[in-house]
């Protein structure tokens, strides 16, 4: 086709996006080479001093990064397993199928930060219903938000509640679009439900699963709202993720230059690791 037309379609979107993003990205890189903080709020040039500080003298960032990796991988795995299970259950005929489908979708439609405020009252250690009901069963009050280990699980619970529906939606849409023939063949061969799942459903779902997992990993790596409201990174730094640490450095301590260094490094790490994860997952799941 005439080459002129294709640019008319592509360019508006492409240029709007580039136009909005080009400044922030160049600015971040430039800012990361400056010592902009609350004492010297100016764009001076200090070379790679910030990067040296990050790689030699900032264990807190790397801890927050590993914490983020742990949190996002754990939540995504849980979301995938639960989402797949739920999708399998309401895939075929079941009583009140449509009712359950709506219910399973609802959390995804709610604003994370607002629901987290509700969760905070829900897990409140003396006035929340969880500890009250558990207390009725004779369980001692659990420090949902102030114990460094349990707080991590509280964040995971809230994240799983919030985003399993997304996984559920993608996987259910995938299940509903599968061809019928392989299942007929398996039924004729008299395969048990378990074998049917392992040899027919799961392999057919592999490409969709990979897509869903990667999308969720990308979104999960941005965990911020939940941590921000639920624990504020605390107790101590027990639930502090990379984004939250950058937020503290940049917008609470106003070390803008250093925060930009963190941001840029973090972005590069994210792009590289997500690309690797995508490649590895594709290899693992398609081969099976």
């Amino acid at each position, binding site marked *: *086709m*005439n080459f002129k*037309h*294709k*640019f008319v*379609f*592509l360019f*508006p*979107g*492409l240029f*709007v*996006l580039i136009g*909005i993003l080009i400044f*922030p*990205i160049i600015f*971040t890189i430039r*800012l990361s080479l400056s010592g902009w903080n609350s004492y010297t709020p100016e764009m001076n040039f200090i070379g790679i001093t910030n990067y040296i500080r990050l790689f030699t003298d900032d264990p807190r960032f790397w801890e927050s990064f590993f914490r983020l990796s742990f949190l996002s991988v754990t939540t995504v795995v849980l979301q995938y397993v639960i989402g797949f299970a739920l999708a399998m259950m*309401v895939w075929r005929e079941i009583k009140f199928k449509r009712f359950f*489908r*709506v*219910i*399973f*979708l609802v959390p*995804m*439609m709610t*604003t*994370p*930060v*607002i629901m987290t*405020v*509700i*969760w905070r*009252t*829900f897990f409140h250690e003396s*006035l*929340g*219903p969880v500890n009250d009901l558990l207390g009725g069963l004779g369980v001692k009050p659990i420090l949902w938000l102030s114990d460094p280990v349990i707080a991590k699980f509280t964040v995971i619970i809230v994240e799983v*509640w919030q985003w399993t529906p997304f996984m559920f*939606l*993608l996987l*259910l*849409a995938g299940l*509903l*679009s599968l061809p019928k023939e392989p299942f007929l063949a398996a039924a004729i061969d008299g395969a048990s439900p378990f074998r049917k799942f392992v040899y027919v459903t799961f392999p057919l779902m592999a490409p969709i699963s990979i897509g869903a997992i990667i999308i969720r990993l*990308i979104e999960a*790596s*941005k965990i*911020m*709202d939940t941590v*921000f*409201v639920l624990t504020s990174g605390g107790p101590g730094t027990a639930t502090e993720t990379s*984004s939250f640490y*950058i*937020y503290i450095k940049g*917008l609470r301590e106003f070390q803008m230059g250093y925060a*930009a260094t963190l941001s*840029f490094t*973090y*972005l590069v790490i994210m*792009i590289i690791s997500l690309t690797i994860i995508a490649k590895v997952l594709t290899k693992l799941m398609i081969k099976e």
Partner: protein
Amino acid sequence: MSKLYTFLKYFFITFWTVFVVAPFLWAVSTSFKDFQSVNSKVTYIPWLDFEPTLEGWRVLIKSPAKGGVDIVEPYFNSIFVTCTASLISIVLGTLAAYALSRFTFKAGFVRNNDITFFFISQRIMPPIVLSIPFFIFLSTIGLLDSLLGLVVVYIVLLMPIAVWIMVDFFNRVPKELDETALIDGCNPYQAFYKVVLPNSIPGLIVAGMFCIIFGWIDFFFAFILTFTEVQLLPVKVVALNSSITPWWSLSASALVSVAPLIIVAFIVERYLSKGNLSGALK
């Protein structure tokens, strides 16, 4: 074996339903409480456990001067920003997705897939990375703390979603459709507008809903890029979450702000059951 499986299945479904619904029930109950029934001991059922009051709901429409919260204006701000940004993203994203699905682009080593990846990869960017430069960018051009500024930022959040869904969708719309239209004497724009677009409505609806969801639920940009002139709903609600939290009005405002999107859940389910969505979402 199969009986056990059925039992486990219903057990799990029931468990998950309770888990999903629990925070909502708690919020509904809390929204009718007053200071006494929140702070003395944990209460659940109105009339039985505590005397319900409408105070939590009433402050929502009172003006701040009278000690109210006034979420009406933030509500309309949120609707405006979400809808405008979604609309722009859908229009631009759909055009770009059509181009990426139908034509071949070559520029150096860049191919169609690379351009598509560029669009989608914007979702990798954590909000915090963008928020500091955006803060300075918007204050330079005088759009800090304004609705327009937020719309600009939200386009970056939403256009990748529109492109992602629509490229996938257009790849499924047979090429013969536009080719026939071209042979019949349409120009490429007419072919797109009169033939392809009417056949892409399910995809557009899904893309639209996703944009609205992800626009509506954003908190961080609204939190950093606005202060007093313009407030969006999530920021307003979270601002109530202070040291002496009024749990009742907090719960009421939370319920009011998540309500509109629950309708979206019903629409999504309808499309899912009709089988339209399976094509639109991989």
